[in-house]
């Protein structure tokens, strides 16, 4: 334990910059994933045929082992000279995030009490008003839950992205394995967990801020 703390103190600069790298990768990935997943999820509620296809594809993607997906990215992206590093890692993480985000958005909007939806229609709201005033506010908790799941998932998978040169805390873990240095491995694990917890905490806070009081 003392060893561990010493290690963290000594190598703090590295740990910190790996953490930042890690966060950048996951942060950008999640932001993009939200920008794609949420509107797509909303659109899918209006097109059942497509919903089935998209959800199936997303659920297949998420079953692909991460190291394999990173691996497959390399030859494909090499064709544009971006085989390693940030881009393949980013694409893989964005893909992994899609299932939780799309599925949650989709079911959240779909599960908005049909009576509420009817009431909104009966009052004379147009589709957009309904979406903004009624459906999205009521679906928010579930949508955010999807974002949180995706974030925690990505922070974990981000550690594996270190093998294709995108840096982050995975480097610490991998080097720890190579050097037989358990403190390094532990530091990697602990900081990944801490990042996940902090991210989850922040997202929960955001969620509580934007969730209408009436549905808490």
């Amino acid at each position, binding site marked *: 334990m003392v060893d561990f703390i010493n290690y963290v103190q000594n190598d703090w600069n590295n740990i910190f910059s790996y953490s930042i790298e890690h966060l950048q990768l996951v942060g950008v990935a999640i932001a993009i994933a939200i920008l794609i997943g949420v509107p797509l999820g909303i659109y899918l509620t209006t097109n059942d045929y497509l919903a089935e296809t998209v959800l199936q594809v997303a659920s297949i993607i998420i079953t692909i082992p991460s190291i394999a997906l990173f691996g497959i990215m390399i030859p494909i992206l090499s064709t544009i000279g971006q085989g390693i590093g940030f881009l393949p890692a980013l694409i893989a993480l964005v893909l992994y995030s899609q299932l939780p985000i799309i599925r949650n958005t989709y079911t959240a909007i779909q599960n908005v*009490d049909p*009576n509420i939806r*009817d*009431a909104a*229609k*009966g009052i*004379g709201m147009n589709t957009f008003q309904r979406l903004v*005033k009624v459906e999205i506010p009521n679906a928010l908790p579930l949508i955010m839950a999807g974002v949180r799941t995706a974030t925690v998932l990505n922070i974990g998978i981000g550690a594996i992205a270190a093998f294709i040169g995108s840096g982050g805390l995975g480097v610490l873990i991998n080097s720890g394995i190579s050097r037989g240095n358990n403190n390094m491995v532990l530091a990697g694990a602990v900081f990944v967990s801490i990042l996940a917890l902090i991210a989850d905490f922040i997202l929960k806070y955001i969620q509580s801020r934007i969730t209408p*009081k*009436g549905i808490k």
Partner: protein
Amino acid sequence: MIDFKNVSKLYNGNVKAIDDISMTVEEGEFVILLGPSGCGKTTLLRMVNQLESISDGEISIQGQNVKQMDKIKMRRNTGYVIQSNGLFPNMTIEDNTMIVPDLLGWDRKKKRDRFNYLMDLLGMNPDDYRKRFPHELSGGQQQRIGVARAMASDPPVMLMDEPFGALDPIIREKVQDEFLAIQKEVKKTILFVSHDIDEAVRMGDKIALLRDGSIMQYDRPTDMLIQPKNEFVSDFVGKDRVLRSMSLYTVQNLVDTFGLKNKEETILDTKEISIHTSLRVAISMILNQEADQLVIINDAGEAQGSLTFDLIEKFLHQEVKGA
């Protein structure tokens, strides 16, 4: 005026929920859609504001085919109380109630005043509820908010789907009274779904009794009670339908019919009855007491004559013939 012309509704191409219904709801009329569960009341109502498509036939409001109207606009002009209240859980009670005025761009002051007015009307203290959320209200309170929401922008037409179903008998009666009182003044055109015969008799100018998607009888409550067109109707309104019809009349009606005048003498022996009491309660009182007659008392506390079983019977026959 709402006009149904040979309206039918097929669900999924095979379930016939509404079967060739024609009827007219006059301007300012309060019409009850009555019938057993699953007979098509909700369906018929929802076709008016086009939440359900019309499979066949035509529905028009003020002479205009609903299909040709702008849906959004038409719905804003039509208050709709949904069967299961459908309040928006993300909005406060005030926001829920004032959503249509909000969409219409009313200013704050006007909205607030309207909210206060409606809440008072429905027997709820506006300030107690303004900032609360739907889940913090009991079922009956939620239902009243649903009614308030539909009334908010004072639409000339109201579609109400069992709006008082969740209220317990005591509150229910109160709200019904309030509602009738406003209706007397503002004369909206109302389609009101119910499966409670007593409520229908009490509230409606007319009752449309449905069964399996068809109208069995469309009549004034008294006529339906006293002259049911077929066995289904008489079964549905009950064997004691005459007693039921008596809740429609007060002692006042009887006094007017027979032209009873103030009487100076007071009869000390017998119990008094207010002129506003319904005849049903009057009969109950007669049955419950030794004397054969009750003294009718008007608002000023003056005796107006005595009420006997025979008088009630006579009044009833006269009314039936007059109908």
